């Protein structure tokens, strides 16, 4: 009995166990999930160690030049701090390491958002009107209206009315209503996409069954 066949049976059984959730929450489903979480976590840890910590930190610290060693002393120290977060009493020591991650992440996110999304997307919204075709122009108007009113929808500024109720400005309210229509259309499109993805996963699992039993 080959290893592939054994793992094939395991995959088949795990698929069945997870599908059993359609009947209701049950023991088999739980066991499958816990096995999955354990294996996935163990695999992630192995990947993190073998493909990140070992080649990028430990190996250079042992075999690298003195410059490398000095440079890597900082992440080594911060990694040690980070490990302190496992123990609640020493978790505060991990704050500097988390601060480096948060600070660098924020800077990269800001730069990416500005250069990769804000300017290009705003520019594209305007540039769409350059098309001479009437249908393209109509589409450009629809897109512009959608962008503006979707952004208005997420504007939550309000004022207190005379009767004490808190209401948005009248124009904002109208714009938000239009924006909600566009958002509903977008979410409907996304919903169709999610269902398509889930359906394809269902079909793939059925194909696996078919392959396992020699069907189809």
């Amino acid at each position, binding site marked *: 009995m080959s290893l592939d066949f054994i793992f094939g049976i395991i995959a088949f059984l795990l698929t069945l166990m997870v599908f059993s959730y359609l009947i209701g929450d049950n023991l088999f489903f739980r066991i499958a999930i*816990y096995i999955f979480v354990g294996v996935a976590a163990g695999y992630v840890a192995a990947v993190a160690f073998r493909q990140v910590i070992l080649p990028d930190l430990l190996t250079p610290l042992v075999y690298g030049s003195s410059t490398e060693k000095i440079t890597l002393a*900082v992440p080594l120290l911060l*990694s040690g701090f980070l490990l302190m977060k496992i123990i609640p009493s020493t978790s505060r020591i991990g704050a500097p390491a988390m601060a480096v991650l948060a*600070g660098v992440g*924020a800077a990269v996110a800001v730069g990416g958002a500005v250069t990769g999304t804000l300017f290009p997307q705003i520019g594209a919204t305007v540039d769409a009107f350059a098309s001479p075709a009437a249908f393209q122009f109509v589409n450009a108007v629809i897109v512009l209206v959608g962008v503006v009113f*979707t952004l208005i929808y997420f504007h939550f500024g309000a004022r207190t009315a005379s009767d004490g109720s808190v209401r948005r400005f009248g124009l904002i309210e109208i714009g938000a209503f239009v924006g909600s*229509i566009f958002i509903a259309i977008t979410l409907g499109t996304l919903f169709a996409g999610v269902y398509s993805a889930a359906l394809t996963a269902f079909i793939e699992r059925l194909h696996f069954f078919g392959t396992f039993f020699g069907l189809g």
Partner: protein
Amino acid sequence: MRAIAVVLAVATGLLVLIGYFIPTLAPIQSMILNWAIILSGAAALVGVFNLIWVHWGKISRREKGSLYSAILLICLIATLIFGMLLGPDDSNMRLLVNSIIVPVEATLMALLAVTLVYASIRLLRRRANLMSVVFLATALLLLIASATLPFGEIGPLNNFVRPWFQHAWALGGARGILIGVALGTLMTGLRVLFGADRPYGGK
């Protein structure tokens, strides 16, 4: 420790941000980025160790469901040991991924198909407003326009309505959402860089 954390966050963040515009700072920026990448790997390890810690505690205290925790720990430690010894790139480790992680995750995704149909059916009973109707109508339109029939395509639906909805109506909303996300990212990032927000526990 808090002050150190704030100083580190602001300093490293600003150095990286300035590196976008001043090429001479690129080496420093690259070094800091490398630190952050190594720290991310360490953070993944910390997360896994925390999982071990928590479930070990459950087992030692014989809490309810500790049997599941035992299963989880056995699988985790076995995978970790084999992964360390063989390397995650080993063919046996890939077999493990293909026969445990892939089937479970893919089947969970497959369950979503049933759940989504069920939720859609129930939607109008719970919330029958204009937004729900538009949402559901769009979803139905795109679903039927994505399929073909045994005798062929559904002409205008496949060739006109679906592309038009996706490239005009849905695109407007999607672009608005993307710009909104970018603006939110910008504001949140700047607040972290200026020390107003301290998600690293520096409050």
